């Protein structure tokens, strides 16, 4: 009954390859996110979708393409992988708290991507 799940947990691949990471949430949330955590543990938002619509798109190379087939899923496809893409990628989901403007985000376990 995991709330936010990601697959795979580990991904090792070579430069130039194309890979995808999948995320699913069973919390009934409307909004999903992708974050990148670099080797220094710094976390930065990449994308956010609300009801399958892209609402946040930070300055991320266009080799990264998110896809949301439905509001419970948000996948991340990465083309032409580079060494600098090595990081831990976290998926998250949230729902607006009634009566407030707050979105509490729940995170998945992360996918550790290593590009060699």
């Amino acid at each position: 009954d995991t709330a936010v799940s990601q697959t795979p947990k580990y991904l090792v691949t070579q430069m130039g390859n194309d890979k995808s990471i999948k995320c699913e949430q069973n919390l009934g949330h409307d909004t999903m996110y992708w974050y990148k955590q670099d080797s220094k543990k710094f976390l930065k938002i990449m994308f956010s979708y609300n009801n399958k619509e892209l609402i946040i798109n930070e300055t991320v190379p266009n080799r990264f393409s998110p896809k949301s087939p439905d509001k419970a899923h948000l996948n991340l496809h990465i083309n032409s992988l580079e060494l600098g893409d090595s990081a831990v990628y976290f998926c998250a989901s949230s729902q607006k708290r009634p009566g407030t403007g707050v979105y509490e985000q729940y995170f998945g376990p992360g996918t550790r991507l290593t590009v060699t």
Partner: protein
Amino acid sequence: AQSVTQLDSQVPVFEEAPVELRCNYSSSVSVYLFWYVQYPNQGLQLLLKYLSGSTLVESINGFEAEFNKSQTSFHLRKPSVHISDTAEYFCAVSDPGQGAQKLVFGQGTRLTINP
């Protein structure tokens, strides 16, 4: 744009000692503030949050944080730490005026508890 500064990248303390992890954010009319904890090789878990009202907020495992608007701070404290508190702690802010969905994180503070 909002920014968050966690002044200490690492904080080593002895078990049962008190600890304070510092967090400052860039000023805004109103913000929502969060502390997340990341245990080794795991995802982030929400520890506590400040939305409005009482400036002192508490978590279920003994941590508390105080919102100080004049100092734009949201420091995290625990009076007596346990070995199990060893983790990375992240302070985060969202600005309802700029889209509350976006969380901006600090650089993280690694809390290491020594026996």
